[in-house]
């Protein structure tokens, strides 16, 4: 329960920022200024939304975790549900098979849950079944990977992949500019290159670097796994005798990337991570290696999604906004965690 105000604050902070993001397409990712927003949101502004209401059953379906971030998503959802006596969470077996996830969601529709929280393996491919749920009168809270059809979800909440790239690009661009580096060698280690989220991250990164007059020297994908991170990084280090900065999209594969860097004995550059794992934050705090920052893509969004599902199912709004109802779309910002503010983010960092 001690985390409760923080989570709540995070939600509303995210909501306020997200409302702005809808209009401005989320261009602001300046580290320090935005970073304080969630924590600063007043915890007491609840307006009675937390008082027990009608009993609601919330169905939950997400990909199977073989990765720290996804594991944290499920845990955050389960923890949030436990905070409410009026919420029963019906989580179906997580799976990475689209076919199975469709069946799982169908079974939740059959069970007539009051609301559904779905993190689809692929938004396009799960769109149809989400639409079925909405047609059956079950509000769908779409978590992170978005359904293309707006009729398929009541509310979307998720991270900002483009913004994550922007945050990383801004940090790297500014740091290099301050150092007065001309024509820097900047490398990018992506996750799974074929995913739209990866392409969004890379686009944001390139766009932000462009404002500093820099560009990405080389780009490789490392499939989000530790082992692939090691392989790709050790080859990339060979390809570039002198590097100025590396952005690695994912802190889980980052463990492998850092191992390769250590193995090669290189330290002439700095690295920025992605997603905000607790390990990465501890490394940044210790300031003992090349990792100097990470840009968040926080799995706490799952806890927020459960809370939103409860509000929607109970017909409540978000009382510290002026709206009578929960907004249709909430985009979290990607925040930049550096040595100075790492202690503030550590509690929300996930163990990989």
């Amino acid at each position, binding site marked *: 329960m001690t985390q409760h105000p923080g989570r709540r604050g995070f939600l509303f902070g995210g909501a306020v920022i997200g409302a702005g993001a809808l209009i401005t397409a989320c261009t602001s990712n300046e580290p320090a200024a935005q970073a304080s927003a969630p924590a600063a949101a007043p915890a007491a502004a609840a307006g009675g939304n937390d008082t027990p209401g009608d009993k609601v059953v919330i169905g939950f379906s997400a990909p199977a975790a073989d990765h*720290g971030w996804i594991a944290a998503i499920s845990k955050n959802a389960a923890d949030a549900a436990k905070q409410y006596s009026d919420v029963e969470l019906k989580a179906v077996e997580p799976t990475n098979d689209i076919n199975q996830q469709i069946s799982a969601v169908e079974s939740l529709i059959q069970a007539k849950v009051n609301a559904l929280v779905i993190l689809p393996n692929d938004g396009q491919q799960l769109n149809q079944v989400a639409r079925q749920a909405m047609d059956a009168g079950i509000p769908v809270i779409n978590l992170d990977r978005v359904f293309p059809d707006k009729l398929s979800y009541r509310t979307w909440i998720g991270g900002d992949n483009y913004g994550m790239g922007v945050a990383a690009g801004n940090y790297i661009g500014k740091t290099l500019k301050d150092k007065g580096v001309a024509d820097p060698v900047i490398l990018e280690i992506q996750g799974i290159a074929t995913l739209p989220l990866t392409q969004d991250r890379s686009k944001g990164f390139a766009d932000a670097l462009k404002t500093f007059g820099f560009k990405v020297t080389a780009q490789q*994908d490392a499939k989000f796994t*530790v*082992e*692939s991170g*090691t392989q*790709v990084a050790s080859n990339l280090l*060979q390809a570039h005798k002198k590097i100025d900065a590396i952005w690695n999209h994912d802190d889980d594969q980052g463990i492998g990337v850092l*191992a390769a860097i250590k193995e*090669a004995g290189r330290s002439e550059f700095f690295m920025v991570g992605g997603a905000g794992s607790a390990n990465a934050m501890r490394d940044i705090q210790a300031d003992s290696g090349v990792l100097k920052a990470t840009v968040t893509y926080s799995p706490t969004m799952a806890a927020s999604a459960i809370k939103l599902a409860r509000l929607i199912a109970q017909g409540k709004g978000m009382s510290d906004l002026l709206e009578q109802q929960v907004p249709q779309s909430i985009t979290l910002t990607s925040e930049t965690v550096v040595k100075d503010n790492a202690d503030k983010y550590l509690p929300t960092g996930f163990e990989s």
Partner: protein
Amino acid sequence: MTEVDQAAPANAPVKPAGAGGPLGRLGEVRHLGLVAALVLLAIVGVVTRPENFATSSNLVSILALASTIGVITVGMTFVIIGGGIDLSVGAVMALASVWATTLATQAYGPVVMIVCAVVVGTGAGLLSGFLIAYGRMVAFIATLAMMVAGRGLAQRMSNQRTQLVQPDNSMIVDLSTTRVLGLPLLVYVFALVVLVGWLVLNRTTFGRRTYAVGGNPEAARLAGINVRRHTLMLYALSGLCCGIAAVLIMARTTTGSSTHGDLYELDAIAAVIIGGTLLTGGRGTIIGSILGLLIFTVITNLFILNGLNTADQLVAKGVIIVAAVLLQRRSLKSAT
């Protein structure tokens, strides 16, 4: 290689294309082809990236990359020469790495971790081997089951998280960071496994029996070989190699994880096939497999050095597999 001819009875031709060919010469010809391919790739490397490719640090990096999967490839070569297949290698390596990096195991220190990885790997291999040799299951099915279940068990044990090697056990990580004569220790482990594998396959009764069992199990049985026990041991050997590979991957990545070794089974099988080992069993060489693997590793290296993407790399690998098999057919024909 002459032992092969003695061990595989001439009256039992298994494959019409290769019956009774002069295997020794064939092997050499194939190896020359593979070496030529490697030289060609090296030339491409030197021409496209003169400042990077031929540096000692790049060559060391290639060897380090090849080590983990190389150890697995040695085990796979034995299994395939023995007429089988092992689809579970990647999963077994992942399972062994996870088991060895649970906090409970790590509490006992690096030596216990290494022993644990090796025991888990060998145990999984023994189980597959038992199902195949005594349960009369098809190897493809038994190891497929082991692949799926092993991956699942690894996910279960690790709680689907990445398990870091704790600082107290840095001896494991030292395998990859400590260098002797310029090479990381894990490359020596790889070299040792290759050497022992070569000796066992070419200089021992066990090796001769492996060729015999793969060439014609019935003939081997009539010749007095305990085919079942031998098959069991081949899979145990493959599992042992996975256990050793798990130690190497722990050293390289500083972690144990259920995602380790993804698709290693296919890479290892491809390397063995390119190396000239017949999928139907009975003939093949360790050296060929290692050359096949090095070709793959050098290609990956070349692609990344030149900033090309993974998709093109996969296409190139596919083309190489097809080319190698076509070449294999031609040289088999010309050998008869």
